[in-house]
Structure formats: C-alpha cells, structure tokens
C-alpha cells in the first residue's frame, strides 16, 4: 500500500466526521439569513462549546476501552464551583480558574485511581462517582445562582475583538476586521487541542492509551505502563469536562447543579464520540473527531430553527417533532456504521471488535 492509502485507512473516520459536519452545518448556513456571518459563528460556537468539551473528555476513556459516565457530573460540579470562586479581583479570578481546573483534574484522577487500583469496571465506577460529584455540586450550589466575573464572561464568549474592548487594550486596525472576528470559543478549543491533546497523543503515555484500547494484554506484555496510561486518560477526561463546566459558568454568568442536564450531557457525549469516529471498543479515534461529532450533533438541532414553517418541509421546524428527528438521525448515524456487517464473508469476524 502507498503511504497515502495507509494514511487514509487510519484517518477516514475523522474525514467522515468532518464531512458530516460540513454537510449539516452547510445546509444550516445556506438556509439561515445571516449564514456565514461572524455573529452567527459566535452564537453557534458558544452553544457548542460545552458539548465539545464533554465529548473531548469522553474520548480518552473510550480510547482505552472504558467509558466515563461522570463527565456530565464533573462538568456540573465545576460549573457550580466556578460560580463561587471565579469573581472578585483579577488575582482572585485567576486563582479561581486555576482552582476549578485543578479540581476537575483531581476528580478525573480519583476516577482513574478507583478504576486502576480498585480494579473495578469503569462504567460502574464512574456511574457511582458521578453521583458523588453531583452531590458535591449540589452542596456548592443548592439553588441556581452565584456570580461569575462579568468582564471575563464577555471576553470568553464573543469574538477576539471583544477581549480588546473589554479590557480596554488598543486594537490594531488590521486585526479588527480579519482575525478579530474569529469567535473566542473556537480559539479556546484550538488552544486546548494544541496545548493538551497533540502533545499528549504523541507522548508514550498517550500512545499507551491507544495500545491499551486495542489490546490491553499485548500492551502490558510489551512493557507499556498500562496503569499510567489509564490514569492519565481519566485525569484528562476530568480536566476537559472541567473546562466545559468553567465555560458554562462564564456563558450563563451563574452556576446550576442541574441533574437532568448533567445526564443529558453525558449521554450526548457518548453519541458525539461515536459520530466522531472513535470506536466504543477502544483503540481507534481521537479528540479531533469528537469535536466534529459534537458540532454535528449541535448543528442538527440548529437546522430545525431555520426551516420555513410554511414551506413544503415546514413540518421539520415543528418543535414537537424535534426530539424525534434528533433521535432518528442519531440512530441512523450509529446504524450506518453497521454497513460492514453485510460485507463480511466469514461470520466469525462479526464477533471481533
């Protein structure tokens, strides 16, 4: 096989995810009156950020062949924590953010420790720790409310120009109408990917996550530090989920320990990971795919807003039908992966991963 074919063979799932996103979001942009404008990008990226974060968080445990049912709870816990600590003087805000991110990583680390050293199944451990984290969130924020630094809220949830406006920095003119129009959440995601994911993926520990997910026994026999890889995967999952919680606090300006919302984010994160091309059996996929998976999920619901209610397809915009459409699309998307089943010649191959 040529190099290109090998490269395609290992990345086609990612390209498929990007393709699905472009198709769905393209339709939306085409139908929307303000399609393609910076304002709309800002709004859409704001609405997608939290789901993207929890989807990124879910990816790492899934890569190791596990699952993290606590990502929604960690997200909510950090959201509640941020509404208590991210306010006051700039130093306090800064320390508050550090505290939030450290607590998030700690929550993930605790998950990892129980799974690795307690030798328990990830799915059931994170189910239980999810309840504990939710309890802590309720302690921190029994009723919705709290306060988050307003300046930071503005700076993080608009475009790059807004950062300059908010803090009164001089804005270079060439910047204002070009780079300045990029939504801040997009930049934040790119930073997280470049600073955390790419170095991690290329490290021995990160490679170990893929190896553990493909064949744990073989990884162990090859002398890889299996325990360290899995610990790192769950710790990073906590951190990513915490980033989402922090952002949700900035976006809403408050905290809310909402149990149904946490559950919905956890379940949607699994769906986003699958659409993004990561195998639930582990070993295949990556965070970038999940980002596109999460954006595709969000873009599906965007689409319902823009169909003309009086047109031939007007029934699609009926809010009552939306959950049904969203569910059907999710079901069709995951079933589409079953196409290979019908091309398999030896039925024994069905039972592999």
């Amino acid at each position: 096989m040529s190099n290109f074919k090998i490269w395609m063979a290992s990345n086609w799932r990612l390209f498929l995810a990007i393709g699905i996103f472009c198709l769905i979001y393209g339709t939306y942009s085409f139908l929307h009156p303000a399609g393609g404008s910076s304002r709309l990008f800002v709004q859409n990226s704001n609405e997608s950020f939290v789901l993207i974060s929890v989807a990124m968080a879910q990816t790492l445990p899934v890569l190791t062949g596990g699952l993290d049912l606590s990502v929604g709870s960690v997200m909510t816990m950090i959201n509640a924590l941020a509404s208590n600590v991210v306010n006051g003087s700039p130093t306090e805000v800064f320390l508050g953010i550090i505290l939030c991110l450290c607590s998030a990583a700690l929550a993930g680390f605790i998950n990892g420790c129980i799974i690795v050293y307690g030798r328990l199944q990830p799915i059931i451990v994170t189910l239980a720790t999810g309840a504990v984290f939710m309890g802590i969130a309720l302690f921190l924020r029994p009723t919705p409310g709290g306060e988050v630094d307003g300046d930071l809220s503005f700076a993080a949830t608009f475009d790059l120009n807004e950062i300059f406006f908010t803090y009164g920095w001089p804005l270079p003119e060439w910047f204002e109408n070009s780079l300045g129009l990029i939504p801040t959440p997009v930049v934040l995601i790119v930073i997280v990917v470049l600073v955390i994911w790419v170095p991690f993926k290329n490290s021995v520990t990160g490679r170990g996550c893929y190896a553990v997910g493909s064949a744990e026994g073989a990884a162990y026999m090859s002398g890889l530090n299996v325990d360290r890889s899995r610990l790192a995967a769950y710790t990073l999952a906590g951190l990513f989920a915490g980033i989402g919680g922090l952002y949700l606090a900035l976006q809403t300006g408050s905290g809310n320990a909402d149990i149904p919302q946490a559950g919905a984010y956890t379940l949607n994160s699994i769906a986003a990971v699958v659409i993004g091309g990561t195998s639930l059996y582990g070993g295949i996929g990556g965070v970038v795919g999940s980002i596109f998976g999460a954006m595709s999920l969000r873009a599906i619901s965007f689409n319902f807003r823009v169909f003309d209610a009086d047109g031939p397809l007007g029934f699609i915009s009926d809010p009552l039908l939306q959950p049904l459409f969203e569910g059907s699309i999710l079901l069709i998307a995951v079933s589409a992966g079953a196409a290979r089943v019908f091309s398999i010649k030896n039925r024994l191959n069905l039972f592999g991963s």
Partner: protein
Amino acid sequence: MKSWIENIDKPIKYALGFIVLVLIVGNIYTLINLGTMPFFSPNYLLQQLQVASFLGLIATGMMVVILLGHIDLSVPWTLTCAAMTATAVGGDGAMLAGLTAGLIIGLINGIGVAFLRVPSMIFTLGVNTVVQGLMIVHTGGYAPQTASTPIMNFLATGYIAGIPTALFVWAAIGGLIIFMLNRTPMGRYLYAMGNREVAAYLSGVNTRLILIAAFVICSLCAAMAGILLAGYSAKAYQGMGDLYLLPAIAAVVIGGTNILGGKGTLAGTVVGAILIVLLQSVLSVMQMPEAGRQIIYGSVIIGMLLVYGRAEKKES
C-alpha cells in the same frame, strides 16, 4: 461440611449485612430524635418492598441483558412509553397494549444489536431518544390526561392477604426468570454467551435469537414496571422512568453480576434492589439533603464493589 452462611454468595452476604446496617443506623437516628423505631415495623418494611418491586422488576430485566455483556439504556422511555400507551388505550386491553409497546421496543433493540452489531450502549441510547421523541409527539409535550385502569391500580397499590400485590407480580416474574436462567437451555446460553460469544456461536447456539430474546425480556420487564408505576400514581407522566435507569444498573452490579457478562444471580439483583430502595428511604427519613444523599449513594456503590467486586490481579 460448610455452614449454611458460607454457602451464600459473597455479594449477597455483604448486601444483606449492609441492609441490616442501614436499618439499625436509621433506627438509632429516629430513636434519638423521635423516640420511635419505625424501620423495624412490618408495615414499613412491606411498604418498602412494594416500592422496591418497581425497581426490582426493571433490574431483573436489566440483569438478563447485562449477563450477555450488553446494556439497555432505553429502559427509561420504554417504561414511560408502556405506561403512556396503557393509560391511553385504557379499558381491558390497557396492559396488553403497554406490554406490546415494550415488546416492539425490545425487538428493535435486539435486532439492532444482533444483526447490525451496533454496540448496545449506543444503539439503545438512540432508541431511547427516538421513543422519547415519539412520546412527545403523542402527548404534545404535556402531561397526558389519561388515567390508569382499575386493574393497574390494584396490581400496583392493592393488597392480597395483607401483602402488596406488586410484590406478587415481582415474585412471579422473578420466578419465571430464575426458572429460565437455571432450568432451560436459554439460561445456559445466556451465561455461555456472556463469557465468550464466539465460543457459544461455534457450539451451535443461535446467538442472534438469544440476543433478541434477552432484549425483549428486558423491555417487557421495563414495560411491566411502567404499567405498575402508572397504576401507583394513577397516571403516566413525562420522564417517569428517568430516575430508574442508574439505580437499576447499580442494583444489578451490587448484587454481584459482572457488568461484562457471564456471571450473576437473580437473588443478588433482588437484594441489590432492596438495598438501594431502603438506603434512599432511610436517608430521606433522616432528612438528608439531596446533596448528601447523592454522595452517600455513590460512595456505597463504590465501597461495596471495592469489598467484593474487584477483578483478578494481573499476573505476568
């Protein structure tokens, strides 16, 4: 000769011990604060068993699927769909209609997992969302105005000879499942497939049929629980099943069933369901705030599993 205590499964032993512990702690609390010991009264215990029968039914079905190493996340809306269908149809055919709804959802789940080979976790999640969407279309997003039928009310809240009828329903279905697991080929196949599906396939087991049957059993149990719950509160409502998914999985696992499949007993699941219901009840009597309840609930699951649910240590 071993004593009878040693013959009980380790998980069941610990879970039973924990149930006694929960009751004693609850009683000490009420003795100090109210001067009474309500938790040992037969009335209280029967009432808790009645509540436990709903969770127990769901956990029974869930266990059959978990024995295969699969999971059914569509339980919340299967339950709600059955309850809504039953109350909407009404009359003599109410329960039949509800169970039929469960049967259809179970068939879809089973076919998706058995023929399309989609991981059950994601397929049933999708089915759950679709059924939720259907129910929202059906009810218009509001609470349905239909009421449960007298038979449903009787099954959920009635008493026969001083014992809640719901317990008889739970016992009857549980008995059927125990018979199925221990005395029929289907039961053997379930354990065999949970341990190694390809080996069961090569031994001539119709693995697809067993997969579909397991998901149908799970959905039927959830549908029955939904019908009972509708009878219990005299109506069906949006989201009535959402609170049952995770406790059902927890009950199965606390009862010693391996989440990866192949190992587990129904007796353990029954004890697990009772433990979870009692724990929730005692904590609410002790006026523990929701936050504390969540933390204790999660810690208990992890604590119990750390005691007896640990995997074998890897040896090189």
